[in-house]
């Protein structure tokens, strides 16, 4: 019951992959959607569960991506070793920064994470000897699983599908566990969480690191799938896009993040037909969704279904 959403997710995505392996919207856009799902679910751990905000997650994505890119092209390291190195580097950096940054709240936290993201981005642009500058790095080798070289779109589709499912599984697990509740408690009321014996500073730091490391792993995968990385894949705009996904789907809900990521991946694909109107429509749709469904598309839908039933139930007991 707890994982029923995950099963539906797997059934739908695997079904699509098997039925339309060569369809552009499935194999190419679908793969991008999986990346966004991984990233949005990871960010939702930090934003939706713990109620914090990060406008700098693209930085962790970039660190993972560039570490993998550099280690595999320059030092011929195994992609999985490089990926772990990227994850460790991100882990170390986020651990170091977690305490001072997470002391900040609200807009100040947004500012600090935004600053962090931009500093990393500037570094990637300026240090051409290491990162290739604005044109980025290319020729990154594909990953190999056993003796299978993963380099077609549909192979990636299934791999990313598996990783997304894993991320969703992790997120759902965490929700119903000691630390997951602690995080959501911080979201609800930080002071009450402390009073219940939750070391909120440590819990926030832990989830920040967890979210950052998952983001970094997604970055590493991205670099192998794309065989290319440049700084605009990890820009401030991308950080904002990730936040938008999480909020659009429904803050705090794992499947909200999944829906938000899917919507924002497919929306531009359709808006492309409007040419010059694209930007305008994108902004308008974003605004409309948030105005009319402020809790997010997925959460509002679920709420709507549950609402009548719940209210009746409360009324009955409340008056007894």
């Amino acid at each position, binding site marked *: 019951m707890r994982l029923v959403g995950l099963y539906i997710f797997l059934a739908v995505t695997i079904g699509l992959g098997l039925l339309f392996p060569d369809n552009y919207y499935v194999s190419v856009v679908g793969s991008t959607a999986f990346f966004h799902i991984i990233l949005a679910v990871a960010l939702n751990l930090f934003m939706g569960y713990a109620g914090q905000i990060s406008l700098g997650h693209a930085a962790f994505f970039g660190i993972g991506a560039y570490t993998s890119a550099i280690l595999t092209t320059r030092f011929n390291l195994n992609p999985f070793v490089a990926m772990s190195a990227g994850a460790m580097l991100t882990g170390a950096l986020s651990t170091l920064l977690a305490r001072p940054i997470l002391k900040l709240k609200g807009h100040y936290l947004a500012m600090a994470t935004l600053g962090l993201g931009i500093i990393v981005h500037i570094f990637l642009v300026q240090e051409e000897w290491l990162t290739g500058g604005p044109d980025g790095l290319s020729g990154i080798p594909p990953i190999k699983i056993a003796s299978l070289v993963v380099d077609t779109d549909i192979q990636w589709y299934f791999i990313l599908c598996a990783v997304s499912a894993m991320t969703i599984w992790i997120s759902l697990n965490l929700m119903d566990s000691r630390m997951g509740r602690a995080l959501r408690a911080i979201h609800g009321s930080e002071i*009450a969480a402390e009073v219940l014996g939750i*070391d909120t500073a440590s819990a926030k730091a832990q989830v920040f690191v967890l979210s950052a490391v998952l983001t970094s792993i997604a970055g590493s995968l991205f670099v192998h799938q794309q065989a290319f990385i440049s700084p605009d894949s990890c820009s401030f705009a991308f950080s904002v896009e990730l936040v938008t996904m999480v909020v659009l789907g429904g803050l705090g809900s794992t499947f909200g993040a999944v829906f938000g990521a899917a919507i924002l991946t497919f929306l531009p694909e359709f808006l492309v037909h409007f040419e010059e109107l694209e930007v305008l429509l994108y902004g308008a749709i974003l605004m409309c969704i948030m105005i009319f469904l402020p809790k997010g598309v997925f959460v509002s839908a679920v709420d709507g279904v549950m609402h009548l039933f719940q209210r009746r139930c409360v009324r009955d007991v409340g008056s007894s």
Partner: protein
Amino acid sequence: MSALLEVNSVSRRFGGVEALKDITFSVHGGEIFSIIGPNGAGKTTLFNLLTGVFYADEGSILFNSHDITRKRTFEIARLGIQRTFQNLQIFLNMNCIENVKTACHTRISSGMISGCLRLKKVIQEERIVEKWAMEALDFVGMKDLALAPSDTLPYGLLKRLEIARALAAKPSLILLDEPAAGLNDTETLEMRHLIESISRSGITVMLVEHNMSLVMEISHRIMVLNYGQCLKLGTPTEVQKDPEVIAAYLGEAAG
């Protein structure tokens, strides 16, 4: 009777205002100890000092012979002090039972990684937490509302939910900040029974409350605060008879 909580000459200032001035008292295990006083007398500030939300400028606080004067909030909670809030601090993003389960934080130990991977230990913990949480909800009479989202509950139920949450942490001392405020007569009566049954179950209760009849009827001892100073400390009868208290507080409130 040994003292569970000892407060020695505690003072706290906010800017130029002395919110608490040289307060000394002790609370014995098992009693219901009430603090009364007009608005702004420093009652909630005292609770905040006891739970480490603020620190005392001077003086010391001992709980179960641990010095908690400079301990952080969550460390104090782990030693066994729980509280409720004057402005409810329910986790509105969770349903009732999740609110209560959260309070079992200190009674279990799994970390974030094991939670993510849902190791065997977590599954076992979840089973027992579920049981504890239901017990606590049952205790406040909200068993049937376990799965109700907390943001749909009426005020009175939220007050009880907050108490259930505090109880689920298995405290030895519980601080209730105006539990009857905003409740109607029936609800106040229910609250009174609830407080008494908490006390009966062996938990020491400290109570800040404006409802005088409730305070006078259930308290073992009462401390009267006025402008941050202790005006009187004694049994309800002693307090009621004290002329200074009557002048400063009861005169207008009980009249």
